[in-house]
C-alpha cells in the first residue's frame, strides 16, 4: 500500500493532558506526525487539533480509529475537500531588499510584518506546498531564521 499525506482534525475536550494523549498515541503506535497544531475552539470547552500525517490506507484507518477510542475525543474529521493553510515567519537581514521581499510575500498572501534595526520579518499564510515554494524562493535573500506554523484545515 502506498504512503499518502493526510490531514485530520480532532475535536477534543479542552483539558490538561489531552494533547499528550494524542501525541503519545502517535508515538506509541509508530504513526508519523508531519505537523500538529492545537487551539481552543471559540465559545466552547473544546480544542481543535489539526494533524498532518502520512501513511498507507491501513495505518490511516488505524489512526482515526485509535483517536476515536480516546475518551476526550469528540470527533475525528478525515479531511477530503478541505481548505488548508499554513503560516511561516521568515527573518531577513536588514541588508536584503525590502521591496523584493515585500513583493515575494505578496505573491504568497503575506507581507512584511515587522522591521527592526538589523532585521525585518516577512509572513506568509498559504497552502503548505506553496509555503515550501516561498521558503525556497526566499533562500537567495539569506534568511536568518524560518519558523513554520503547522497546518490548519477546514472542510469545504
Amino acid at each position, binding site marked *: 500500500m502506498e504512503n499518502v499525506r493526510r490531514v485530520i482534525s480532532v475535536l477534543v475536550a479542552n483539558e490538561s*493532558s489531552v494533547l499528550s494523549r494524542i501525541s503519545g498515541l502517535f508515538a506509541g503506535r509508530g504513526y508519523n506526525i508531519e505537523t500538529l497544531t492545537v487551539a481552543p475552539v471559540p465559545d466552547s470547552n473544546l480544542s481543535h487539533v489539526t494533524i498532518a500525517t502520512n501513511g498507507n490506507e491501513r495505518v490511516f484507518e488505524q489512526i482515526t480509529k485509535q483517536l476515536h477510542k480516546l*475518551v*476526550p475525543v469528540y470527533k475525528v474529521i478525515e479531511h477530503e475537500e478541505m481548505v488548508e493553510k499554513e503560516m511561516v515567519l521568515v527573518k531577513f537581514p536588514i541588508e536584503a531588499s525590502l521591496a523584493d521581499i515585500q513583493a515575494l510575500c505578496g505573491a504568497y498572501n503575506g507581507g512584511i510584518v515587522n522591521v527592526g534595526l538589523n532585521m525585518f520579518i516577512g509572513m506568509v499564510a498559504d497552502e503548505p506546498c506553496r509555503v515550501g515554494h516561498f521558503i525556497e524562493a526566499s533562500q537567495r535573500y539569506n534568511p536568518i531564521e524560518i519558523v513554520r506554523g503547522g497546518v490548519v484545515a477546514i472542510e469545504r
Partner: protein
Amino acid sequence: MKMNGAQMVCEALIAEGVKTVFGYPGGAIMNVYDEIYKQDGFEHILNRHEQASVHAADGYARATGEVGVAMVTSGPGFTNAVTGLATAYMDSIPLVVISGQVPLSLIGTDGFQEIDAVGISRPCTKHNYLVRELSELPRILKEAFHIARTGRPGPVLVDIPKDITAEFGDFVYPKEVNIDSYKPTIKGNRRQIEKAVDAIIKAKKPLLYIGGGVVLANASDLVRKIADMSQIPAVETLMARGVMGHSNPLLQGMLGMHGNYSSNMAMSETDLIIALGARFDDRVTGKLSEFAKYADIIHVDIDPANIGKLVDVDYPIVGDVKEVLEKMIEGLEGKVNPARYADWREVLERYDNLHPQSYVDSDEVLKPQWVIERIGQLVGEQAIITSDVGQHQMWAAQHYPFDRPRQWINSGGLGTMGFGFPAALGAKKAFPNKTVINITGDGSILMNVQELVTAAEYRIPVINVILNNHFLGMVRQWQTFFYDGRYSETDLTFQPNFKALAEACHGIGYDVTTKAEFDAALKDAIEKDRVAFINVQVARFEDVLPMVPAAGALYNMMLPKKVESKKEAK
C-alpha cells in the same frame, strides 16, 4: 453530605458494590486508608507488593466479570502497579486503580514519591484521571467505573493528590454518567449482520474463531447455541478456553502458535472465518500472508480499531458480541443447514485423528502434561485454574478439560510472569467455595512469591502447582530450537526449597516426584484448606508441541512424536 475526599472514595466504592479492595498503603494515600479503617462496607486485602494487588483485583474481575479494585500509594507504589495495569489493559479487564499522589502544590517539583502517574499509565490504561479539584472527585470515580466496564473493558487509573483526600466538601454520588465523547457502539449494524448471515448460509467450510471478547461479553451460551444450531466447527484462542466446553465435538481446540493440528488446519482451510471477540493476534495468525488464505472474514468486535487492523475484513460488525449473536441466531434460524457442513466436519475429524493433541507419558519421570490432565480428572469442572506465563501456561491451555468460561484465568496479551498466584487470590476471594489452582513454573512463581504471606494471613487457600523443570522452560525451548542449545541464563538449577519456603510463610508444602505422590499431595492440599505449594519435579526437556515457529505459516507445525494414545480433551 459533608465529608473529606478520602471518605468520598470509600463511599463511592461502596456505592459501586465493591466487596474487596486489594492494596498497599503509603504516604500519599494514607488519608484514604484512614477512612478504610473506619468503614465496614468492603474488605481490604493487604498484598505484599503493589503489582500483586493489581493482579489480584484483575483475577477477581476475570472470575466474576465485575470491576476489580486496587489501591496504591504514589511514586513506587504506583510504578509497581504499572505491570498490573498493562496486564489488564492487554486483556481488556475492567479495573479501577486508585493511586495517591503528592499534594497539588508539590506536583511538578520532584517531590518525595512523586511520579507522573497519568503520563506513565496513559498507554496502558483505557483512561486515566488526575483529580485537580475535590468537586470533580465523585464524578470522576463514577466515570472511572463506567469506562472500565462498558464498551471494550479496561483498567482506569484515578490519581488523587493527598490534599484532595484531606479536603472537605459536599458529596453527592452521581446516579448516571454522561460523557458526550464516549459512546461505545453496542448494537451491530443490521444490514451488515444480514450480509454475514447470508455468507454463513452460503459457505462450505465456515469456522467459528472464538476470542476472549466472548468471555468478557458473557456470550458463551450464545456461541454454543450458534454452533449447535449450525454444526459449524469452532476454534478457541488462549483467552477463550472454556467457552465451548472441552467435550463439545465441534470444538477443534486452541489455535495458534501452540494450537493443535486440526485447529490450525481448520483455520488454514476455512472459506469463512466467523471471528467473535477475537483480534487476530500474531500468536494466533502466524505468518499473515499465509493466514487463512481461502477465507472471507466476518469480524464481530466491540472495538472498531480491532477490525481491519491486521487482516482485511469482508463483513465488519462493530458491536457487543452478545447483541450481534442474538441477531445472527435469529437470522440463521430455519435457514442454516447443518448438513451442508458435514464434509467439512469430516475433513477436520480426519485431521484430528491424524495428529490428535497428545504427548508421550513416562513411568520414570512425571510429564507436565500428565500433571495437568490429572488435576482435570481430580477437580475438573469445579476448579478455577489460573496460570503464570511459559510452558506450563501452554500445557494448561492445551490439556486442561475446561468446561465453562471464566474457569481459565491467565495473562494472554502481555504475558506477565508472576500473574497467576495473585490472580488466584482474587479468584478465590470471589469464589471461596471453589478450588482455585495456580498452575505455575519454577521461574514464574518466584515473581510474586511474597503473596504466600497474604494468602496465609487472610486464609485464602489457593494451591500452587509448580511444574518444576529447573528451567525457564519456554525460553529454554526456543534456545533448543533456534539458538543451538545455548541455554543463556535459563538454567534454574539453583532454586529455593519450595516446600520449606511455603512453610516459612505459614503455608503448606509438598515435594512430588511420582504420580502417587502428586495425587496424595493435591488431595491433602484441598483437604487442609491452606495456601499450598506442590513442587512437582517434571521432565526437564519436555517441549510444548505442536509449535508454529514465530513468523511461520500456521499450517507448518512442529508436531509431537506420534503415539497410540487415546484422544484427549480439546
